[in-house]
């Protein structure tokens, strides 16, 4: 159970990215955060694992207060939270294998990891992760030689290496074409069915309908909607996306 209480983020330049946002995420949920670009989705996800320090408010994970964790505790908490990014955020010049193994850094022996020396067991685990996302043959290719869809699969494999309790996915398919979007989201759905909680921000409503078990809508940093995807009617849609918005469908697979 993840509990977010009155979360507020004000950037040093005065931009208010989040205003008093509160909601709960029970274990095993596929929670989708929707909203326009700049509505605070990315900030929200990053405040959960404190890649961005929230200005006010609390984030509890079961009984642990993430916002109050010491730097060492924070590393330990992050170790169990996988993260997938819109731009994949792979180290482009490193091999796929190194990228996947880097998901294991929190568990690894700090000294050996600095030399990029990994136990056989971890390498096996990395191969298994790559097999799960269907690209074991790319293990020793340079990350930037892969296509966008393949790079995002490496991103998921990296998150899998953390044996995560939940996964934060920040617009994981926004840089991919619609067909690939479904393939990536299906991996996340599969993981969700295996018991990993997923918090994912998305753009396309049809994807939200297809994958979300629950939806949180943000507008200008405020939570304007919370409920199931089917509850988003025209009025709610206009409220979240503004009056001029037209719904665009990603694809119908």
């Amino acid at each position, binding site marked *: 159970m993840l509990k977010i209480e009155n979360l507020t983020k004000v950037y040093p330049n005065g931009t208010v990215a989040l205003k008093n946002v509160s909601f709960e995420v029970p274990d095993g949920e596929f929670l989708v955060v929707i909203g326009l670009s700049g509505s605070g989705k990315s900030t929200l996800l990053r405040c959960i694992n404190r*890649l961005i320090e929230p200005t006010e408010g609390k984030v509890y994970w079961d009984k642990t207060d993430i916002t109050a964790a010491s730097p060492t505790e924070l590393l330990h908490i992050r170790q169990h939270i996988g993260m997938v990014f819109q731009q994949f955020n792979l*180290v*482009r010049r490193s091999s796929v294998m190194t990228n996947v193994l880097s998901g294991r850094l*929190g568990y690894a022996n700090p000294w050996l*990891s600095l030399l990029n020396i990994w136990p056989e067991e971890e390498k096996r685990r990395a191969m298994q992760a790559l097999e799960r996302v269907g690209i074991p043959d790319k293990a020793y290719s340079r990350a930037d030689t892969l296509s966008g869809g393949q790079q995002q699969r490496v991103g998921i494999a990296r998150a899998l290496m953390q044996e995560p309790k939940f996964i934060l996915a920040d617009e994981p398919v926004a840089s991919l074409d619609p067909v690939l979007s479904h393939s990536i989201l299906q991996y996340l759905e599969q993981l969700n069915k295996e018991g990993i909680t997923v918090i994912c921000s998305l753009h396309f409503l049809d994807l939200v309908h297809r994958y979300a078990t629950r939806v949180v809508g943000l507008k200008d940093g405020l939570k304007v909607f919370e409920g199931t995807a089917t509850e988003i009617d025209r009025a709610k849609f206009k409220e979240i996306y503004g009056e001029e918005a037209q719904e665009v469908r990603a694809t119908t697979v």
Partner: protein
Amino acid sequence: MNKKHSPVLSGILSTLIPGLGQFYAGLRYRGVAVLLGMLFTSGIVAWYGKPIWYLAPVLIWLWNIWDAICAARQGRTFSVLLPILFGFVAMFGIGLAVVGVDFSKADINRAIAIMRPMFHPDFIQKRAESNQAWVEVMVPCLPGRSVSGINEENGKKVTITPACADIGETLTITASGFWPNTDANLWWEDPSGSVKMIGPGEAAMLVAHTDGSGTLTASFKVPTTATIAVPDVTQSPPHRVYLEQTRLLGGFELSYVGGRVLQGALQTIGMALMATALAILLAIPVSFLAARNLMSGNPFTYAIYFIVRTLLNILRSIEPLIIAIVFVVIVGLGPFAGVLALAVHSVAALAKLYSEVIEGIDPGPIEAIRATGANWVQVVRYAVIPQIVPPFTAFTIYRWDINVRSATIIGFVGGGGIGFLLIELIRINNFRGVGALFITIAVIVMLLDYFSAKIRERLV
């Protein structure tokens, strides 16, 4: 297209003030540009020009009137090619007026005299061994100052008769123990060590041939210039007559100059290596101070960034050759002065390139690795280093490449390396050596260019 503008009025306006017609016709920027161009051209012509140049502003003025009429009549304008052409001619003209072209001192014979040996570079020579002996002789004959006229060593015996003579008198030399049936060169060496020819007309080498038993006999006159370098003939030490046979051993070997050229080349590459290594050591820490994204956090670090950047820019704008002159004064002539000069310049150049790499780093991977629970050192190792090491290496190789080129000329001011040898060879008019040196520099630069480009291609 605007019919309201009168072509006549426009033409008159541009006749009075260039550009005014265009301005009137609605082409304001063009009008201002024409006026500025006209002022600039006239200014230059008035400053540097010869009478004929006054044609240029006149032609531009005429063009401007036509252009203004076209602008008013059609709303479009005549080609700007003409003024651009004039601008180009003016550029060349200014250069010509300042520099001048002077072929009056050119001398084709001088060119040939140095170019011909350069096309026969003194790099390798045929392998040969030599067999040499000498005998002493007194010039002139003085009582109490005599030599035996016989010299025996290593199984060779040389006899000269008489053992003393005056200028122009005939001497006969007999030598035995030499290689049989081989030519031998004979020459005269005065007490100061300078060589005189004793062959026909004192202009060629005297050549004698040994018989089957290795003996030769030759006659010659004491050279007329034998005592020219002797201040007091009554106190003069003996002169010497040398005999030398050479024979080929087959194959080739590096000539003396060729050896020195190779040594110089090696020293040059070594200088570049050492300078680049020193520069890397300093440039890496400095580059972090010169990276805007790391230093713009607060006013204090931003001030450091600004100061470091300014210093680097100043340092980079000073030619290594000039820095070398300073270091030659401080640490003395030699390659070390050159190394220091190259290192100082390279620190500035590399730190700038490195800092741009750091500024261009992708924050995405850093965020991703932080999210896995990695500690600070692990983040640097996995997200920062993989991003900066390949471009750092590429820039470093590129810098080394440049340093080798710079090191070839830094010897001109005493900084060691192949340039030092080049100056020396030019001073003693050894243009065959200069030719060998040019070829070596060209080969080094070409190879370096090729391989450094190849390596950089792989890294980036």
